[in-house]
């Protein structure tokens, strides 16, 4: 092996020595001595204020592919540098002067060898598990993986090195993809992080007449001539080298740069005040082959540690006069060449960070593009609705229209995304603005309708009808029931938290709306009645509420924003995933406040049927039919029956039959008659009411007919129905009766409020 001073390698500082004393360096020396892949070439140390130690090794890496296009060799000479101050990360340099530009290198200045970026995690984390052996193993992995092009295939050469540079620049996608047209300009903003050690710079595309940003004058941006895709170069460290690199690849820096500086300088000159930092941003069209079409645009950006004015002066384009730089008069027409002063200007490459877009947000959050491209409306942007939109909006799922007539009041703030200053604003306006401001300007398509979700308004109906999904987050009974009745609407979902805040619910129609949201609601109640989890599910309705204002409508409940966050996240995710399937769904998630467990319950949904009885529509489903048929079958040859529970919606004139209770124990049952008893019934009805927040109650009676009989009512049946109707009239309710026979089932209805006879 040639000595370390061989001209093929970079020379190192410090003094040659026999032994290293630092803990890290000593550990690595020991590891290298017992690893046949590593041969120690020399040890060096600097005992001055820099206090570093270096182990120079030849690393023989059998995992490097022999003909790798990246250009890593089987044996590489490396300098493993350690600071005596262990809080500083070790550095690893590839000493070969023609070591290739690869990914995962730190940006290095000219005259400094390639610096390998070995660790993804910060040194403070790495140090916890660091050993000398792990360090040199990491080097082997770096060499072999970079050589194998694990991240970039050999036929897709890396166009740009990933550098850890001091400065980062956030760049709008618009600039890279389409460049700037018309009066659009790229404007630069410093963020609070920017100081002499670097920081994050943000650029935005704005129209030229928009009020000048404070750093407009510090940014020269240009599109240069195209280059053919191919070799990867280390970013230039002087303006002269950058110009040479582009010239060598058939492009040109000089003319676009002159134009860019002249554009910034005129007509009013460039102030000399901000004269410490400027940026050159190059947009480079990349061609797959010479003369071919542009395949993509690459952006390279450089920091210049002087103002653009001073740079223009060095380029002999601008002259300083009374605190500002102005265009120098053009003398002659000879081709312009960068003067020596300009060639020598130091430039420092900086990392270009792509700006946020909806597409990128989806990529980051794992939301598929095709599933996210739809128009949605959300009715109600209270605490839950604002939470859902905050999640869906940030992950780029859907284009939303917000409907809510409420304004933000003080008591909303703790559980809403609203801010104190937005009290008095429409909730929809605030939420829409909050979302829009989560993305670059005009990136998000969002509509705000500060009105009631009143479906009798044709405009509202039309607005909702043009969407692909309507999400009811209004926490009302009436809105979903109204939505169910409208045939022109798209698929509807209804989501809510239960009064205790411990449970949450997602009800979702199928894509063809075979099952409407009110029919799903009905079956959800049956599960509450029948399942163990229904016992406490709706507990707390109207019990812990308190009045915040003078009117009774101002009722609000005690509910922690933590529960809104827990269930908001759950609902947002579940509904997003469920909506990718065509099926109807009803799910409940229950939170156990002692353990934090969340358990999931699914309501098995059955197809629904409607039966018209006079001016009432009876809504029931196959689940009820099977249940009644089974009770009848089990009791044959004697008749059986019991109470029907459900609810009648006076507005839509729909009666929802939720369940049929079995015969109480004290019923009289015979092959030809059935007389329903009362044992335990009152308690059962009370329990059903309690479980369903008072929604489900007594609705009528059912009984079976024996084999050979039809489901037509008998004389006794009619007497009973009349009796029921007379009793229920007291509540203003009609009476319903269900008769189950072998082949058929019949509903009868009698309404003594508007007596119009008996219907079946």
């Amino acid at each position: 092996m040639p000595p370390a001073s061989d001209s093929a390698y970079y020379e190192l500082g410090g003094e040659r020595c026999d032994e290293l004393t630092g803990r890290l360096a000593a550990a690595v020396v020991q590891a290298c001595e017992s690893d046949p892949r590593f041969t120690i070439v020399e040890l060096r140390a600097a005992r001055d204020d820099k206090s570093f130690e270096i182990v120079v090794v030849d690393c023989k890496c059998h995992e490097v592919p022999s003909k790798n296009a990246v250009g890593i060799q089987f044996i590489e000479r490396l300098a493993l540098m350690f600071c005596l101050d262990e809080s500083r990360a070790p550095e690893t340099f590839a000493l070969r002067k023609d070591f290739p530009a690869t990914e995962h290198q730190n940006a290095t200045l000219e005259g400094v060898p390639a610096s390998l970026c070995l660790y993804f995690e910060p040194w403070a984390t790495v140090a916890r598990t660091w050993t000398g052996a792990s360090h040199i193993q990491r080097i082997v992995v770096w060499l072999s993986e970079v050589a194998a092009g694990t991240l970039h295939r050999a036929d897709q050469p890396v166009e740009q090195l990933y550098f850890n540079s001091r400065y980062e620049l956030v760049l709008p996608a618009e600039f890279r993809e389409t460049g700037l047209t018309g009066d659009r300009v790229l404007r630069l903003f410093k963020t609070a992080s920017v100081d002499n050690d670097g920081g994050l710079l943000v650029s935005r595309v704005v129209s030229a007449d928009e009020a000048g940003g404070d750093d407009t004058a510090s940014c020269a941006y240009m599109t240069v001539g195209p280059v053919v895709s191919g070799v990867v170069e280390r970013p230039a460290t002087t303006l002269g080298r950058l110009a040479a690199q582009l010239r060598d690849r058939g492009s040109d820096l000089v003319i676009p740069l002159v134009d860019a500086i002249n554009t910034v300088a005129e007509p009013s000159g460039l102030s000399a005040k901000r004269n410490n930092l400027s940026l050159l941003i190059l947009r480079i069209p990349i061609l797959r082959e010479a003369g071919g079409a542009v395949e993509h645009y690459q952006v390279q950006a450089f920091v210049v540690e002087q103002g653009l004015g001073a740079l223009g002066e060095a380029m002999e384009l601008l002259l300083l006069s009374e605190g500002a730089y102005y265009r120098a008069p053009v003398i002659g027409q000879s081709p312009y060449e960068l003067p020596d002063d300009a060639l020598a200007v130091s430039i420092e490459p900086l990392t270009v960070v792509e700006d946020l877009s909806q597409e990128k947000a989806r990529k980051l959050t794992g939301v598929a593009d095709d599933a996210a491209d739809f128009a949605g409306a959300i009715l109600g942007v209270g605490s839950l609705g604002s939470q859902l939109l905050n999640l869906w909006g940030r992950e780029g799922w859907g284009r939303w229209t917000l409907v809510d007539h409420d304004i933000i009041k003080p008591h909303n703030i703790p559980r809403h995304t609203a801010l104190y200053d937005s009290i008095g604003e429409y909730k929809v306006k605030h939420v829409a603005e909050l979302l829009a401001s989560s993305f670059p300007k005009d990136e998000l398509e969002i509509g705000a309708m500060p009105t009631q979700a009143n479906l009798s308004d044709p405009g509202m109906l039309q607005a909702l009808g043009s969407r692909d999904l309507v999400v009811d987050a209004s926490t009302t009974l009436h809105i979903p029931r109204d939505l169910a009745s409208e045939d022109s609407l798209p698929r509807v979902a209804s989501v809510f938290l239960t009064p205790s805040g411990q449970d949450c619910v997602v009800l979702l129609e199928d894509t063809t709306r075979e099952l409407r949201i009110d029919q799903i609601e009905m079956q959800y109640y049956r599960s509450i009645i029948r399942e163990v989890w229904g016992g406490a599910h709706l507990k707390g309705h109207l019990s812990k509420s308190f009045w915040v204002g003078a009117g009774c409508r101002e009722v609000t409940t005690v509910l922690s924003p933590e529960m809104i966050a827990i269930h908001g996240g759950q609902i947002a995710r579940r509904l997003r995933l469920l909506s990718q399937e065509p099926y109807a769904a009803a799910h409940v998630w229950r939170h156990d406040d002692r353990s934090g467990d969340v358990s999931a319950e699914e309501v098995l949904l059955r197809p629904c049927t409607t039966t018209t009885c006079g001016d009432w529509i009876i809504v029931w489903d196959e689940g009820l039919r099977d249940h009644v048929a089974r009770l009848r079958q089990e009791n044959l040859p004697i008749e059986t029956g019991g109470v029907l529970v459900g609810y009648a919606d006076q507005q839509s004139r729909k009666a929802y039959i939720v369940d049929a209770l079995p015969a109480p124990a004290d019923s009289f049952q015979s092959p030809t008659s059935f007389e329903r008893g009362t044992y335990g019934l009152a308690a059962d009805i009370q329990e059903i009411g309690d479980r369903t927040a008072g929604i489900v109650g007594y609705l009528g009676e059912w009984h079976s007919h024996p084999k050979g009989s039809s489901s037509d009512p008998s004389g006794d049946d009619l007497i009973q129905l009349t009796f029921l109707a007379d009793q229920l009239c007291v509540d203003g309710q009609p009476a319903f009766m269900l008769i189950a026979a072998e082949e058929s089932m019949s509903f009868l209805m009698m309404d003594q409020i508007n007596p119009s006879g008996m219907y079946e």
Partner: protein
Amino acid sequence: MHKLTFYPVGNGDSSQIHLANGKRLLFDFRQHSQASDSEHPTIDLDRRLREELAADKRSDVDVFAITHGDKDHIEGSTEFFELDHAAKYQGKDRIKVKELWVPAALVLDSFAKDSEPHEAKIWRQEARHRLIEGYGVRVFSKPAKLKAFLESKGVSLESREHLITDAGELVPGFSLATDGVEFFCHSPFIKHCDEGEIQRNASALIFQVRLSVDGTVTNYFAVGDSESDVLGEIVEITEAKGNDDRLDWDIYNIPHHCSYLALGPDKGKNSTQPTDPVDRLLEHGQRDAYVISSSWPIKNDKLAYEQTQPPHVQAKNTYVRRLEDVDGREFMVTMEHKSETKPQPIEIQVTGSGVKLSAAIGGAAILVHERPPRAGVPYAPCFR
């Protein structure tokens, strides 16, 4: 990616080409008599191959090639493979051979020497059976005696022509286009077989295996036991035919466990002087090439310089120097790889960016795959 594996079987040969398309070609098989003893350094090849095949859910190999019939190339193979010619070599857990590759000398008993191992005779029966039946066999070279043998069995040579490959030909059934591999047959030559009582080593199979991945070509010189005169003749014939590129190698599996005889007639004091044509073969090594010696560890002490049995350190010295001349990577010894007490197979990955060794595993990662040394009471016979 294709994979070449060289198994540590002592002074013997066992290697495998595992193609990217899943095909497995095994070259020689040696289950050392002590291989199943976990304290013996040679690999339990039987167990290892069964594990590899089980991972592929396979119970056969596409090709089993016997480069020649010496014990160190076939030991234990008739217990591992299923043979079609007799029921006693058949059984549920035997590994089937789709295609058997043999030199013609193995088929013809007139070439057998007295010390021929019994297993060679068994394989002869198997090769003959397949050849007469006309399936699952490839015979390399076509001596006159092969014709005579076939006719004595009432089979014409013409009807078996498709199962026979001569030196200078590509082996049918594999191509760069479909498998990413082609086998150029260098040996045996017919003349070797027709010179009467010939050495079987002289008629061993020698291939240049050309592997291709994404257009990147890697050449593997797979050599059965051969001596310098045979190798020299191969070089001269190949050069004379203008097929110089068929001598290129990125990996050279050197013959006869690093015997000096594969380089030249004299062992030499410090290194063996190769014959001119063999020297030219070594110059065909490519940058970053590997040389593999399938042998016991090669020491560098006085005893090593004096020992008669291979491996010969003088030969190694020559290979190492020549490898340096072509900027090659490393001279590797199967019984030295990773550890001399429990060597690991040398696994070379053939990728679109050239060759590399499979990533070394060590530390805890290897402990979960390896049986640690037996724990127990100390060996103390004096107290029995």
